[in-house]
């Protein structure tokens, strides 16, 4: 028999039926009616957040670490609009989150009641899809569709607006479990065009200087094992975007590191001199390509993406393949394995190209050059922090970051061994993401080693979630690169010759140790490399292992993120170190 449930029970039941195990929420008047069912529910863990954007970033981190959708529940008005940055962040990085908002009613004029906003309208440009629930009977279908839309194709956020006018809180409705999806306007590509894939393999075999360019789609599409197999099969070098870090093990010989504005000289050289680029699940972001005219000028571009709108957007694809990266790679592997001659030639392919790459690899990178120059400073070098953490965690930590110099230092220095461990706000550049995202990751992976690397400016944006962290006893480790300034902004001022426009606030900084301790957490300060090593050791020691640990790391404010490129300068030209 169909169970009879009240609307709030129905919502919770629909979420349970979709396998949702965690909900990040912040309640309010308009969502109050359906919060009653939440307190009675045992299948779902409810995480009470301190700020709606924190709830969204937690759901985002949760989704990135697992591939499962992160679910957020909020109230109306400011509760809903506070989530916009979190939704936009998930949209830019294609992360499946579902945000359920309350609303008083639809039908009355919008914005005349307390705490009312047209959330569907406000969020429209930054969602994959959105729903206003017409009646409680539609809840199972809408929740089912929302999970499907958020997680399939190119993933993205979905908003559900649940108005009180859609249900009577005391009435019981028939709960019909929703199984079938019928969305005639939504059919994400399930496989690539075999003819195109065949052509792609031929082109790769005929090329002399091939490069694979792996983006976040490889990670989102769980295609990392296939990528490694295919790259090994043909002995292809792989560069990654910022979002693609971890798509191939960072320490693997085939991995040339990250390309782009702050990418390695090796990766940028390889792309600039390539004659063919196999781009996988990437949108050729401007920080990766810079001037499209000068990006891989001599290369034929094969672009595989599940989203046709990413293809030929900035870089015209000579060979477009619309489809899930994992499926396409598996077909490529199969086609390659079928070719007998491939087996015998495995070790002689692209010999001169690899020799050139290995020559580049021997050259000192911009990062090393700068490390040596700043030896005179007795403050901690940011790269030493990343290296110390890498050594301590053996490249296996889940790392969340905010945005700025610290983010790029980690991207350059931490060699991720597996996918879904690098959780960074790439597309939107959202300061304030790192701490709540770390909590989300820890909820998803309770036994995982979760490290938030942040800057003091970013950390101040969402530090209220330290309280959430205390409430749920999450043993995350926070390393705050404190240079008392908006480091990346100042770096740009410096590069562009505006040194006198220095944006610093070292005098008005809080005492981070006291601040964090006031939330009940362990807090340490490191002002020298020895203190840092001691702090890292302590943070992961038996004694502190199960506690939240914050380390205020006083890094050298004069260190720039290098290499860096001026915009419009092309892929292979770097800003000189002394600029």
């Amino acid at each position: 028999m169909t169970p009879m449930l009240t609307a709030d029970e129905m919502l919770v039941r629909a979420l349970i039926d979709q396998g949702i195990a965690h909900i990040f929420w912040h309640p309010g008047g308009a969502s109050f009616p359906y919060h009653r069912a939440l307190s009675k529910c045992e299948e779902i863990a409810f995480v009470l957040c301190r700020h709606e954007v924190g709830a969204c970033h937690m759901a985002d981190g949760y989704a990135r670490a697992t591939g499962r959708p992160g679910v957020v529940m909020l109230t109306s008005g400011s509760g809903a609009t506070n989530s916009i940055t979190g939704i936009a962040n998930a949209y830019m990085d294609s992360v499946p989150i579902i945000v359920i908002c309350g609303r008083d009613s639809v039908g009355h004029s919008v914005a005349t009641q307390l705490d009312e906003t047209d959330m569907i309208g406000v969020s429209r440009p930054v969602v994959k899809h959105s729903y206003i629930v017409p009646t409680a009977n539609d809840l199972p279908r809408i929740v089912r569709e929302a999970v499907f839309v958020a997680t399939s194709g190119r993933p993205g956020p979905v908003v559900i607006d649940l108005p009180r006018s859609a249900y009577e809180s005391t009435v019981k409705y028939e709960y019909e479990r929703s199984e079938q999806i019928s969305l005639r306007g939504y059919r994400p590509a399930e496989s690539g065009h075999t003819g195109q894939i065949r052509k792609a393999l031929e082109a790769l075999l005929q090329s002399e200087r091939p490069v694979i360019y792996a983006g976040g789609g490889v990670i989102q599409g769980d295609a990392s094992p296939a990528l490694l197999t295919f790259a090994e099969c043909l002995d292809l070098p792989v560069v990654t975007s910022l979002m693609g870090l971890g798509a191939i093990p960072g320490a693997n010989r085939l991995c040339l590191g990250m390309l782009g504005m702050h990418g390695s000289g090796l990766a940028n050289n390889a792309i600039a001199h390539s004659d063919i680029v196999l781009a996988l699940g990437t949108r050729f972001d401007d920080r990766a390509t810079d001037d499209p005219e000068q990006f891989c000028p001599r290369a034929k571009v094969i672009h595989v993406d599940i989203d046709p709108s990413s293809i030929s957007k900035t870089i015209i694809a000579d060979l477009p393949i619309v489809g899930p990266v994992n499926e396409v790679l598996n077909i490529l592997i199969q086609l390659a394995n079928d070719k007998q001659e491939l087996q015998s030639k495995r070790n002689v392919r692209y010999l001169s190209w690899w020799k050139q790459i290995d020559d580049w690899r021997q050259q000192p990178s911009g990062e090393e050059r700068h490390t040596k120059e700043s030896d005179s400073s007795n403050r901690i070098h940011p790269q030493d922090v990343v290296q110390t953490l890498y050594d301590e965690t053996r490249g296996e930590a889940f790392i969340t970051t905010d945005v700025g110099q610290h983010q790029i230092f980690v991207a350059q220095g931490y060699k991720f061994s597996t996918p879904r461990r690098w959780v960074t706000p790439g597309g939107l550049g959202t300061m304030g993401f790192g701490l709540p995202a770390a909590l989300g990751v820890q909820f998803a992976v309770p036994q995982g080693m979760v490290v938030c690397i942040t800057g003091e400016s970013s950390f101040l944006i969402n530090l209220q979630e330290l309280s959430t962290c205390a409430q749920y006893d999450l043993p995350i480790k926070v390393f705050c690169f404190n240079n008392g300034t908006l480091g990346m902004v100042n770096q740009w001022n410096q590069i562009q010759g505006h040194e006198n426009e220095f944006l610093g606030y070292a005098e008005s900084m809080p005492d981070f140790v006291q601040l964090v301790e006031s939330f009940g957490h362990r807090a340490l300060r490191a002002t020298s490399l020895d203190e840092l090593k001691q702090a890292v050791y302590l943070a992961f020691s038996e004694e502190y292992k199960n506690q939240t640990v914050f380390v205020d790391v006083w890094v050298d404010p004069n260190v720039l993120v290098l290499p860096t490129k001026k915009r419009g300068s092309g892929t292979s030209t770097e800003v000189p170190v002394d600029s």
Partner: protein
Amino acid sequence: MKQLLAILFENEAGALVRVLGLFAQRNVNIESLSVAPTEDTTMSRLTLLTLSDAQTIEQITKHLNRLVGVVKVINLVHVEHVERELMLVKVCAEGDERQEIKRTCDIFRGQIVDVTTNTYTIQLVGPTAKLLGFLEAIGRAHILEVVRSGTCGITRGAKVLSAGPKGA
């Protein structure tokens, strides 16, 4: 460059504004649009006229296809097609001029759908250029009010736009 998109989409609240938002966020103006349910009333069909370069309209088309509520999109300028627009125009028609205006209306195969002692309301159907030609012929001084429906377009031949698999 003229672009004429025919879009099939779900006939439900909020679906149209998602479509139009893609133009607004790229600062592309919509010259005209005409929308109504099709023979299947769960779906609406929109014909949208805009001036934009090929690359912009290709991106917009791809993003239209990404919308969950959009079922099918084609750009009619790339295929043989018929386009028509309906116009109602209220003109000042007094004394001797009444005959002259009636004659011009006949030449353009228009119909007078409302009459007063000093005005005609004329209905005209045709390609947009014909409607503009009529306004030119009548003369700006006589025109009191103009309402245009926006262009409707349909492909020539047996091919139809229906809810099949979406194109890339």
